[in-house]
């Protein structure tokens, strides 16, 4: 799931995105950022599917909130090379 940083490293047509984790998710994962290579045409849900393979991800709810480039996004939102994808734990501000 991790790999050499830098755009284009995923091979012809592939993309690389940066995944960010916060709060209880970051604590469970033991890290707050990772890089991921995905095929062209990948969507937000593909990131979640890949992350679910990690042992800590058992704690993720069925449909965790996701943000792409600082905006909430739907699971079918398309990803582009260099995007920042965040998995957002239940928020508790205010």
């Amino acid at each position, binding site marked *: 799931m991790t790999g050499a940083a830098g755009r284009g490293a995923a091979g012809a047509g592939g993309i690389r995105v940066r995944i*960010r984790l*916060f*709060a*209880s998710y970051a*604590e469970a994962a033991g890290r707050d950022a990772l890089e991921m290579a995905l095929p062209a045409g990948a969507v937000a849900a593909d990131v979640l599917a890949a992350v679910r393979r990690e042992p800590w991800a058992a704690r993720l*709810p069925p449909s965790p*909130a996701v*943000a792409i*480039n*600082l*905006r*909430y996004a739907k699971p079918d939102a398309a990803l582009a090379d260099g995007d920042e994808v*965040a998995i*957002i*734990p*239940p*928020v*508790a*501000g*205010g």
Partner: protein
Amino acid sequence: MWAMSGWLTDRPIDVAALLADVASAGTGGTVLFLGTVRRSEDDGPVESIEYSAYEEMAEAELGRIVDEARTQWPGARIALRHRTGLVPLGEPSVAIAAAAPHRAEAYAASRFLIEETKRRAPIWKKERLAGEARWVEGRPGGG
């Protein structure tokens, strides 16, 4: 891509400055909301709460929320601050001032701002009790 807009602060919120920010000669009603770290009876002695945020996105999302309020209540003047870091019991974690020519708009904008902030701002809190710390369960989050 984004600019720090100053909605977040790691220092105590200056409530008088927020009220001064929204004051104008056309204001008839001003509503200030303060959200405070509360001592909950079931929870034992919470000593403080530590707020953490996805800072870049929280700044952007709070900016979007304020823009939405300004679109919906064009006459309203708005100021908002949310704390990050350790907030002692009794200090406000969030302060929102909304001033408008008529009070109904000020109340409506104020309520919109706090509800959307709680629903959407990527901010988390961890309670510090005597000798332990735990994440507070929040809302799913999302736009």
